[in-house]
C-alpha cells in the first residue's frame, strides 16, 4: 500500500459482496447486514443481479450509515471478492484507499491486486476443507466464515451476529451450533492473522429505533392480505414475482381456515397477463377484492382490459414493479418508467389512479389502501413500485394496523335497498361525486341486474349509442377523477432550512436519495423545498407547490421525464418551469447525482429575477 491513505470511517461506508448465484451467499450476506442493524446502525442493502451473464454472478451491496441514508451512495470502500469470474472488475471497483477481503487459499499473482488498497486474505477454502466433510456444507459455511472475519475486521460485536443465528434457527440446535462455529472460525482466524480492526468500523449506536428490515414485494403481498384481497391472477415476471409468492405464503399463514385447513383465498397462475387481468376483473365484478402483480411488459399486454375496466367501472388493483424495458431491456435493473403507460393506459379517453410507495412500509399501507380506493372509485388502481424497493430489503417503519378500521367496499346497492324500491341506475350519478352505485351478481331475484359493457349504454346500463348518453358518461367519469384527487394519499412536503424559490418534486424510491441530496445541497448553501408525490391524479397541493416556486426540479428514474410530462399535462404548467433531473442507467439514483445536477443547473441559471414571493420563515 503506497501513496494513498487507507480509508478511515466509522458507521459510514459501503461494503460490497461479489458472489456466485446459488452458492448460499445471500443468507450470509443478509446475516451481516442484520448484525449491523442489531448494533443500532442503519444499513441499506441492495442486490445487483444481471439477468444474462454466464456463471450468474451476483453482488450484494451494504451501505452502512449511522446518519440513516438509505439511498444508494455509489462507490465501494470494501469488496468481499468471492467470485473468481468477476475478480478483475471487482478489484477495480474499490475506491482508492479501500479494502479487499478474499479467499487466499490459492495464491494469486501480484498483478491481480492493486497497490492503493488494503488486501486481506483468509484461506477460507482451506479452513472449510479441514473442518467439513460434506461439499455442500463447505460451501455454505465458507460464506458464514467470511461474515465472521468481517465481524473481527470491522470491530463488530460477535454476540450480535450470534444472537441473530440463534433467533433465525430457533429450536434447531444442531444448525445453530454449526453456524455459530463457522462464524467463530472466521472471526478467530481474522483476529489472529489480520490487522483487526481496519479503518472501517461499526460502533454501537442508537439510530435504528423500532424499524424493520423487509423487501417491498413482501410488503405488497402483505398489504394485499390486509387489504382483503381474495383473488390473485398472475403471470411470472421479474421483478414482480415475489409479490405473489409473498401473498401466497402470508395467505397460508393467515388465511387458512383453522377448522378445516381450507383456503380463504384463490391464486391462479394464468397463461399470460391478458388472462391475469381478465381474472382480476371477473372476480372484482363479482364482488371479490382481486389483484395482479406484474412489470412493464405485462402492463403492455393488459392495456385492452384496463380500458374495459375504466369504462365498465370495475375495481382492480395492479402492482407494477417497474424495471428496465422491454423484455430484453435490463429486466433486473430498476427504473420508474411505466408512469405514462399506466396513467393513460388503454384506448379511448382513459386515466387511472396511481399510487407511488416510497419504501416497504408504504408498499404495505398504500397496497392495502389501494383495495379501498379501487372499490370506492370502481376503477383500476395501480401501485407503482420498482425493483429497487421491491427486491431489496429496506429499513423502514414497522407495520401497523388499526383494528377498528373496516374495509370501504364503496357504493354497493344491497338487497334491502333494492327490495325497498330504491332506484338503481348502474351509471347514474346520484351523489354528484361521479361515482355510481353497483350491484353484485346474485343480489336480488328481480332487481338490480344489469348487462356490463363499455360505453354503448345509458346511465341505466341499457344499450344506447346516443351521443348525449356518451357525453353524460364521460363528464361523470371526469367528475369521478376529480373525486379521486381528494381520496388519494397526500404528497409529503419537506421545506428547506430557509425560504427558497426552488423546489424539487420526486416520487417513489427516489425518496431517500432526495432527502440526502437536500442535506448535501444545504451544506453548499443551496436550498430546495421538496415534495414527494404519492399519487396520480395530483391533488391541489401539488399544483400549489409548483405555483409557489419559481423553478421546480422533477427528479425521476426514467429517460423521458414521465412525471414531468404528467404534471405539465394535468396542471397546464409552463414546461420551462419544470427542470428535468433524470437518472436511468438502471442503477438506483444517488444523492450525489441529484445534488450534482441541481447544483449545476442552478449555477447555470446564475441571476434570475425573483418572480415568486418567498415562503416566510416559520416563527
Amino acid at each position, binding site marked *: 500500500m503506497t501513496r494513498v491513505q487507507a480509508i478511515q470511517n466509522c458507521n459510514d461506508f459501503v461494503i460490497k459482496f461479489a458472489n456466485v448465484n446459488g452458492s448460499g451467499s445471500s443468507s450470509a450476506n443478509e446475516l451481516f447486514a442484520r448484525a449491523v442493524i442489531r448494533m443500532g446502525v442503519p444499513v441499506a442493502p441492495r442486490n445487483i443481479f444481471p439477468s444474462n451473464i454466464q456463471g450468474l454472478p451476483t453482488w450484494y451491496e451494504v451501505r452502512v450509515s449511522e446518519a440513516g441514508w438509505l439511498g444508494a451512495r455509489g462507490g465501494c470502500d470494501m469488496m468481499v471478492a468471492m467470485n473468481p469470474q468477476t475478480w478483475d472488475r471487482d478489484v477495480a471497483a474499490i475506491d482508492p484507499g479501500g479494502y479487499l477481503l478474499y479467499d487466499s487459499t490459492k495464491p494469486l499473482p501480484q498483478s491481480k491486486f492493486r497497490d492503493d488498497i488494503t488486501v486481506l486474505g483468509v484461506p477460507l477454502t482451506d479452513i472449510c476443507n479441514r473442518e467439513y466433510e460434506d461439499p455442500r456444507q463447505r460451501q455454505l459455511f465458507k460464506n458464514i466464515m467470511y461474515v465472521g472475519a468481517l465481524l473481527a475486521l470491522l470491530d463488530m460485536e460477535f454476540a450480535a451476529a450470534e444472537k441473530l443465528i440463534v433467533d433465525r434457527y430457533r429450536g434447531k440446535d444442531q444448525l445453530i451450533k454449526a453456524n455459530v462455529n463457522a462464524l467463530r472460525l472466521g472471526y478467530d482466524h481474522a483476529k489472529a492473522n489480520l490487522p483487526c480492526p481496519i479503518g472501517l468500523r461499526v460502533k454501537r449506536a442508537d439510530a435504528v429505533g423500532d424499524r424493520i428490515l423487509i423487501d417491498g414485494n413482501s410488503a405488497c403481498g402483505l398489504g394485499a392480505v390486509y387489504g382483503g384481497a381474495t*383473488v390473485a391472477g398472475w403471470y411470472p415476471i421479474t421483478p414482480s414475482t415475489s409479490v405473489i409468492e409473498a401473498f401466497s405464503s402470508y395467505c397460508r399463514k393467515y388465511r387458512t381456515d383453522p377448522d378445516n385447513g381450507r383456503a380463504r383465498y384463490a391464486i391462479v397462475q394464468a397463461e399470460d397477463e391478458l388472462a391475469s387481468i381478465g381474472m382480476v376483473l371477473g372476480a372484482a365484478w363479482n364482488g371479490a377484492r382481486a389483484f395482479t402483480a406484474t412489470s412493464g411488459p405485462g402492463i403492455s399486454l393488459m392495456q385492452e382490459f384496463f380500458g374495459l375496466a375504466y369504462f365498465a367501472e370495475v375495481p382492480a388493483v395492479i402492482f407494477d414493479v417497474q424495471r428496465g424495458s422491454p423484455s430484453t431491456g435490463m429486466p433486473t435493473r430498476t427504473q420508474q418508467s411505466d408512469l405514462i403507460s399506466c396513467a393513460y393506459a388503454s384506448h379511448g379517453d382513459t386515466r387511472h389512479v396511481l399510487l407511488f410507495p416510497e419504501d416497504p412500509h408504504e408498499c404495505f399501507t398504500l397496497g392495502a389502501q389501494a383495495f379501498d380506493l379501487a372499490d370506492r372509485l370502481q376503477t383500476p388502481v395501480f401501485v407503482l413500485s420498482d425493483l429497487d424497493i421491491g427486491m431489496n430489503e429496506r429499513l423502514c417503519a414497522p407495520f401497523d*394496523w388499526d383494528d377498528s378500521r373496516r374495509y370501504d367496499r364503496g357504493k354497493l346497492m344491497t338487497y334491502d335497498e333494492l327490495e325497498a324500491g330504491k332506484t338503481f341506475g348502474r351509471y347514474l350519478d346520484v351523489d354528484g361525486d361521479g361515482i355510481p352505485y353497483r350491484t353484485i351478481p346474485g343480489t336480488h331475484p328481480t332487481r338490480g341486474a344489469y348487462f356490463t359493457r363499455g360505453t354503448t349504454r345509458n346511465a341505466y346500463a341499457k344499450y344506447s349509442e346516443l351521443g348525449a348518453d356518451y357525453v353524460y358518461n364521460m363528464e361523470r367519469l371526469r367528475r369521478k377523477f376529480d373525486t379521486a384527487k381528494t381520496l388519494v394519499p397526500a404528497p409529503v412536503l419537506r421545506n428547506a432550512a430557509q425560504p427558497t424559490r426552488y423546489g424539487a418534486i420526486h416520487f417513489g424510491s427516489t425518496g431517500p436519495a432526495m432527502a440526502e441530496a437536500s442535506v448535501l445541497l444545504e451544506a453548499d448553501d443551496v436550498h430546495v423545498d421538496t415534495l414527494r408525490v404519492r399519487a396520480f391524479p395530483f391533488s391541489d397541493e401539488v399544483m400549489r407547490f409548483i405555483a409557489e416556486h419559481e423553478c421546480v426540479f422533477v427528479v425521476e428514474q426514467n429517460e423521458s421525464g414521465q412525471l414531468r410530462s404528467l404534471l405539465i399535462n394535468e396542471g397546464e404548467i409552463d414546461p420551462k418551469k419544470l427542470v428535468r433531473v433524470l437518472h436511468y442507467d438502471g442503477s438506483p439514483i444517488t444523492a450525489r447525482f441529484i445534488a450534482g445536477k441541481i447544483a449545476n443547473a442552478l449555477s447555470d441559471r446564475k441571476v434570475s429575477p425573483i418572480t415568486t414571493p418567498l415562503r416566510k420563515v416559520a416563527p
Partner: protein
Amino acid sequence: MTYLAKPKLLSADAPRNALGYTRRDYEGAISTLCAGCGHDSISAAVVQACFDLDIEPHKVAKLSGIGCSSKTPDYFLGNSHGFNSVHGRMPSVLTGAALANRNLTYLGVSGDGDSASIGIGQFAHAMRRGVNMTYIVENNGVYGLTKGQFSATADKGSKSKKGVINSDSPIDLAALALQLGATYVARSFSGDKEQLIPLIKGALCHGGPAFIDVISPCVTFNNHSGSTKSYDYVREHNAAVNRVDVILPKAQIETSYPPGSLRRVVQHDGSILHLRKLGVDYDPSDRIGAINHLQERQALGEIVTGLLYVNSSVQDMHAHLNTVEKPLNQLGDAYLCPGSKALDALNALLR
C-alpha cells in the same frame, strides 16, 4: 332485426316452473340480430333450458366476449348479471368471477372468432383449469359482426359469400376441448332445438367444464351454397351420435325411463342423463374414442353432433384450490384481515 312478438299481458295459464316463474322471466331484451340468425335460436334454447331446470335467474352470471354471438346474453335471462367483456377474453373473466363466488351458475357465450381465433389461448386454458361453467360457442364459420370474414373454424374448401375459397385448415373446438380436459363435450345445431335444449341442460347441471359447440348459421354472411356452415349443409351432413334427456333428481321417481335408453349417467348434482344411441355404437365415456370418432367422421365430411363425452366424476377448480365453502366475495373483514397483533409478531421477526 328479429322482433320476437311478445304479448304485453301474460296469459294467466302460461306454464310455470317449480319456482313459480314463467318462461318470460327467463327472457331478456329484444334481440337486435338479423332475422333468422342461428344465435337467436340458441338464446331461446338457453331460456327453455333454464326454465326447465328451475334455475333462479339471478343465480346465473352470463359472460361473453365480442361478436354477434357475444351480444346474445343481453337477449336472455334479463334478471341475471351479464358481462360483455373483450374480444376473446371471456374465459379469463368468467374464471375470475367463478373464483369470487362458487355458488352461482356460470354461462359463457362466445363465437368461433372469439374462441377459435383471437381467444384460442384463453379457451384452452379455461378447459384445462376445470372451471365449473357452461361454455357455448355459437359457431358460424365467420366473423358476423365485422361482416363475414372467415373465422378459424371455417372448413378448408368452404366458399365465402364473395366467392373466396378458404385454404386454411379448420380448428375443431370440440376436439380441442376433449383433449384439454373438458369433462362434458357436445356439439349441436341451432336448427335442432330438440337436441340442443337437453344438451344445454346437461351442461348446466354438470359441475365442471362443459363445452358445447353449436353450429349456428349466419344468414347474412354464410348461408349460401358452397358454405359448410349453412342451414342446408348442416342438415344434410348432421351425424348425431345420440339423444339426451335430462332428468332432475326430484323428478326421478315419477319418470319412466324412455324406451331405447341404453345408458344412464348420474351427474354430481344428482341429475341423470339418459343417452339414447342413434345408429352407430358410440360410447360417450371414452374420451379417446370420442376424439377418434370425430376425426374419422370429419374426414368423411360428416358433422358429428350429440353428447360426445361426459365424465361425471368431476373435480372443479375450487376443489383443486381447496377454497372454503363460503364464496370468497362474502367473507367478512374478520375472516380476511389478520389484525394488528399478527403484525406486531411479524415486525418482531423482521428486526
